[in-house]
């Protein structure tokens, strides 16, 4: 299967020893029960393709930032982009972070086809995971295989971002028992070089607008791996929103990252592009080249994908064929389209790679840390990259 990607190596026979080693480094979920989440092979990406991916990410980051700034203050657009009402006041009240820094911890997911065509699928600007896989496992595995890894810079970028934000607490739900989320915040804390406490969101409570931890100590600056749209669902969401609005709590990523997070923003960018609004010629060229036609209504003639504006891990994704018939839907993730509106996006081709687990589709993630592209995340799975996909490291093949 010739293509831009090359799969290197064969799985080592002593997998358990390698899994244990990765666990020591901080990646403790390479194996889950009987399933191999980590594939012990490496995908090599040509240096030119990586260069283009980095440029595309930087350009799209500016384009989406511009759109987010345009949306701020327009409540009718908040509604159409699926942003829950509980967040509207804080979006209007709180100052917008500087350009390019609405979220200092984000990840693009790209469909890179077998012949190297890059298309943006989504931006996870609020609570991306895969950090440990990308920042810890990938550089280590690439070094071992003699491949270059742009991911080496990730830890220093996190240190720079957190040096500005200076959270006193990092939180996730089920801290200590949920391996992936706990491991993610622990790795971020370690890489930040700061003295930050890790806590469980479920222990936090709001006391008349002040967030408090289990012992009742106030929390004023917090990094939370807690999706902001869930404030509309959780019992304590409104009180948490009040704590943020009243200035008692500064949250990271900041509240405005929800505008970047909603997949509705891609529909807004595409709409502005079609209408010839907001963007200059250079930006329009990037939108046309790297983004997919996206709408909040299925207006396609060919095949398309539908997904919740706040869907995660492939949950809620449905693939429709050329005549609009449902071809495939995600069965594993939570279907967030029960709660949030849906966007419709033209289908894009994912490169197919031959791995030890069979022929899989490769989804290419690119982390944006402190406003800069740095760090590839490879995931291999079916047509929909869902909860049951595998992590496969991506390295960069030097030019010959």
């Amino acid at each position, binding site marked *: 299967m010739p293509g831009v990607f090359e799969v290197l190596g064969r799985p080592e026979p002593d997998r358990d020893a390698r899994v244990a080693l990765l666990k020591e480094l901080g990646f403790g979920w390479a194996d889950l029960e009987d399933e191999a*989440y980590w594939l012990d092979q490496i995908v090599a990406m040509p240096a030119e393709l990586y260069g283009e991916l980095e440029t595309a990410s930087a350009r799209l980051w500016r384009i989406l930032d511009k759109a987010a700034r345009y949306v701020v203050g327009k409540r009718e657009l908040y509604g159409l982009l699926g942003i829950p009402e509980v967040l509207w006041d804080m979006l209007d009240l709180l100052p917008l972070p500087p350009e390019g820094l609405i979220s200092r911890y984000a990840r693009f997911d790209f469909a890179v086809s077998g012949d190297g065509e890059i298309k943006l699928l989504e931006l996870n600007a609020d609570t991306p995971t895969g950090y440990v896989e990308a920042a810890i496992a990938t550089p280590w595995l690439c070094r071992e295989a003699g491949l270059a890894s742009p991911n080496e810079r990730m830890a220093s970028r996190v240190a720079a971002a957190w040096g500005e934000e200076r959270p006193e607490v990092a939180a996730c739900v089920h801290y200590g028992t949920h391996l992936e989320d706990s491991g993610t915040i622990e790795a971020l804390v370690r890489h930040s070089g700061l003295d930050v406490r890790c806590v469980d*969101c479920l222990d936090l*409570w709001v006391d008349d607008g002040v967030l408090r931890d289990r012992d009742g100590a106030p929390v004023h600056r917090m990094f939370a791996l807690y999706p902001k749209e869930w404030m509309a*669902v959780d019992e304590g969401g409104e009180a948490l929103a009040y704590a943020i609005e009243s200035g008692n709590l500064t949250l990271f990523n900041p509240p405005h990252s929800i505008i970047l997070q909603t997949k509705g923003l891609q529909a807004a960018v595409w709409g502005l592009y079609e209408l010839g609004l907001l963007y200059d010629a250079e930006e329009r060229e990037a939108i046309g080249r790297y983004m997919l036609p996206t709408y909040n209504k299925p207006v396609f003639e060919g095949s398309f994908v539908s997904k919740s504006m706040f869907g995660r891990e492939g949950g809620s994704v449905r693939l429709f064929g050329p005549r609009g018939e449902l071809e495939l839907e995600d069965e594993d993730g939570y279907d967030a389209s029960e*709660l949030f509106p849906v966007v419709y996006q033209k289908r894009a081709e994912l490169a197919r790679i031959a791995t030890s687990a069979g022929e899989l589709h490769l989804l290419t993630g690119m982390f944006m840390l402190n406003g800069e592209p740095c760090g590839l995340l490879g995931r291999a799975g079916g047509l929909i990259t869902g909860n049951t996909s595998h992590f496969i490291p991506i390295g960069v093949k030097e030019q010959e």
Partner: protein
Amino acid sequence: MKWEERPDEPAKFKFLTKDGKPLRILSTSLGIALLANAALGSVSFAADGDAGDAEGDQPKLVEWSTEAVKSYFNPAVDWGLPDLDETTDGNAAESAPTPTPTPGTVTQGSTIVINNGSSGFGWDDLLLYHLLFNQGSAYSSSSWTSSHTTYYEGTTKPYKEKSFTSETFQNKPVAGSVVRPKTTSRSGSVTRRSSKVTSSNPGGIGGTSSALSASSRSSSAKSSGSRSSGGFGG
């Protein structure tokens, strides 16, 4: 086809593709909202180079003004109605010579109709009419009808004006106010709770949502495994 590529063509063509079909985005609510926002002037179209038009800030006459009005009109004069707050301050004249025009308010920079020109009917006349008909108080439909009995056409049934309360025009939730329930028109009332909840209990942040995101439709080992159940992967 995009706007800036054919700037001379009529606006309607800008909403059509090359083959004459309407842009897809215009079939969506989001597209209409974006266009409406653009029409309200909060975004400039791609080809617009000089959005800041200096002449746009100047007061100008409506196009059907008479010759007498045109000769009388001087754009340098402040044609805005006096702002009561400023006149009571007493120092507005020295400190703020010309207020900046803002959209939606009728001050300097808006279109001016001069009423004290040839028609003979101006603001002072209007004030006089108001003093006569409303006896110096603010206009109120109930005080007018209480002293001026009128009848429904062709009947002897007196006209009874509608009455309004402070809740009638309440279009946003006000804490503590009593409103009628929307699900029934017969009886009952709802007292609105405080507009913001300011406290919560442990488990309130992430409790419901993590249970939801763990409730996947699949029973595969992976989704019940510890990597993903109840977590918030992005």
